[in-house]
């Protein structure tokens, strides 16, 4: 694995973190091999006196299904939120496709093709499933107000809408929720919401998908279905970073695993390596897994 710049996180305390200069980022960006769309360098986030994320570095390989695991409170979701711009990181850098996206707004990050889902599915409840999916695609010309309103310019908008509609129905069929198309998202069950959320994220046509506990609250049969779909999508070329606290699920499905513990990176590597890592076993001792 590529761990050249990341270093060993626990070797350095937070005080000794090297200042990352712009030149470093540029260098890192130049050195970023094409196969690493997402790189996190020394990420740090504090809430009041608590350091939730403490100098975490890792990479996500193109076309991979990478898992981010750790016990509750390990800082997984905070890491996610820092990567996607929901929280502002207190230190470190996030590189996406070679560009520095640290401190960018969520919409800028999503617009570059790094799209996330939420731990607790956040549906646009009083919008139908169709509307939810229609919202997602990037580059919709009709999102410019004058294009949608001016009589002469609407033709192109309608043309694009028709195309998007086709994609939406295909996606709905892929996830087998086309029978719910006209339903308000708020009326969906928990599992259906998870499907909708993934379908919606997919409609953005992202390069990398960050899934925050996509299986939480999902029944086993739906879980299997979701996993199957994730694998299918991966074969089509999508890259996934998966946050989960269910270690077995990650072990079985991901080829690369990042383990966080108490805000720090504990271990990184393929499943068999992680399985035999003493520190990981220690961290999970007493945890019901």
């Amino acid at each position: 694995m590529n761990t050249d710049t990341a270093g060993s996180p626990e070797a350095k305390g937070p005080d000794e973190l090297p200042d990352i200069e712009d030149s470093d980022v540029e260098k890192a960006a130049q050195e970023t091999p094409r196969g690493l769309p997402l790189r996190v360098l020394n990420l740090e986030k504090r809430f009041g006196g608590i350091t939730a994320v403490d100098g975490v570095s890792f990479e996500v390989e193109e076309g991979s299904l990478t898992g981010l695991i750790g016990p509750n409170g390990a800082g997984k979701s905070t890491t996610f939120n820092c990567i996607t711009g929901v929280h502002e990181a207190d230190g470190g850098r996030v590189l996406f496709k070679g560009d520095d996206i640290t401190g960018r707004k969520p919409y800028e990050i999503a617009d570059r093709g790094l799209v996330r889902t939420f731990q607790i599915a956040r549906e646009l409840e009083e919008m139908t499933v169709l509307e939810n999916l229609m919202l997602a695609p990037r580059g919709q010309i009709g999102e410019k107000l004058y294009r949608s309103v001016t009589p002469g310019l609407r033709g192109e908008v309608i043309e694009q809408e028709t195309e998007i509609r086709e994609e939406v129905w295909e996606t709905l069929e892929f996830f087998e929720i086309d029978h719910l198309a006209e339903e308000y998202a708020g009326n969906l069950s928990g599992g259906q919401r998870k499907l909708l959320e993934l379908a919606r994220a997919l409609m953005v046509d992202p390069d990398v998908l960050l899934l925050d506990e996509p299986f939480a609250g999902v029944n086993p049969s739906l879980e299997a279905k979701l996993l199957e779909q994730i694998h299918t999508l991966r074969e089509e070329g999508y890259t996934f970073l998966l946050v989960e606290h269910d270690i077995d699920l990650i072990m079985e499905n991901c080829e690369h695993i990042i383990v966080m513990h108490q805000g720090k990176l504990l271990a990184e590597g393929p499943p068999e390596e992680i399985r035999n890592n003493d520190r990981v076993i220690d961290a999970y001792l007493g945890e019901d897994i």
Partner: protein
Amino acid sequence: MSVGQRLWRAVPSSIKEDDKRLIIALLAGTYLLYAVSQVYLALMNNADVFPAVANSLQNLTFLIAVYAIMALALNLHWGYTGLFNIGIAGFMAVGVYSMSILAAPPGGSPPGFGLPVPIALIGALVITAIVGGIAALPALQLEADYLAIVTVGLSEIIRLVLNADYFSGTVTDPQSNSYNVVNLFGFKFGTGGGQGINTPTSSPASYLYGPSGDPNAIGELAYGIGVSLGVNNSVVNGFTYGMFLLLFVVTAYYVLLVRIGNSPFGRVLKAIREDELVAQSLGKDTRWVKIKVFMVGCALMGLGGILWQGSFGFVNPNTFRPIVTFYIFTALIVGGSGSNTGSVVGGAVFAAFLFEGPRQLARVVEAAMGGLLITVSGPGASLPSPNNFYVAFSTLDPLGWLGYTIGNISSLRFILLGVVLVYMMQNRSEGLLGHRKEIAASVDLSERKGNVAPTDGGETNE
């Protein structure tokens, strides 16, 4: 099942399912009710029936139209985007005052820019949009209830500034100590201060009919028809303007807002209302969208203000107290926020039954009681009208109580408004029409190429 639900069930489904028919049926029913009650009033008061009905209906038309216009404009902010803007009165004021100042003659008191009315109107819309854009900045970071306080504060700031003597432009002699003309890059103007300001016209119908003393051919014709029906020129003018507002302006607002709503842009608005972070996580620059929607909505409110308060020939800052905002909010909430059809229905129901209704009812009750008393106690008998609460209620005379209540119907109307607001919030926050699926897309989403669409689209939930 409540009475309301029974009534609603009695409405034929062909009307319920078609927005245009629903609005037309509602308007027709309302007009009929007013016409009948007005005929009764005219007969009781020995007045000419037709002019009385015409006058009542022209007033009703105007009110329905302006409240529908304002509710539609507000629906863009509150119904679609979830922006809790309770500064509507302020934006109306900006519109009306901008137009009046731009159109006022430079030599007048207060002086203005002397622009032709159409240019002044466009200028006013641009100014209102800019003010709206500035007002949008707080909306970028504040939660809904904080935004409410900011916008109502802003609307009061606008009113107080317009009310201040400092910018009034009423003392145009530069030598005077109380000289208060605003001088902006050599352009001199004033707001009129607490005295108010003249708007370009007191009779918008004259743009069609020519000046009232010397009408053009169309005017001659319209006034001629009026005379033959016993209706005077001012009622003809009022009716013409009301119908213009209802048929053209309300329709234009409706079409525009449906277009905005049923588009990719409208989808983003809805997403902001539901969950702004989700919209952002899907790559939507919600901040820019909010600024745009604030600008457009405020311009529409400004135009509404111009067509409404700007049509009387004169306006003063106290016209734009926050109560006006609450009227409009009530109209939208009653109709159903989020729905454009609901906005129009709300405007009509508010104007006809909450705003004008109690007064009309009081007139009818007064006339009926008067008639009854004459039959019972002979000619000359009438309902007592005590001049204060103490007198009315200490006499222990139920007729006195009734008389006082009828005489003070305008304050009871506010109490009714308050009760309706509370009731709606407790029991029916989705408004009269309930949740309607007005799908935000430029195309019919249930339709697909090559595939048969599901057939149950567009049905109201529940």
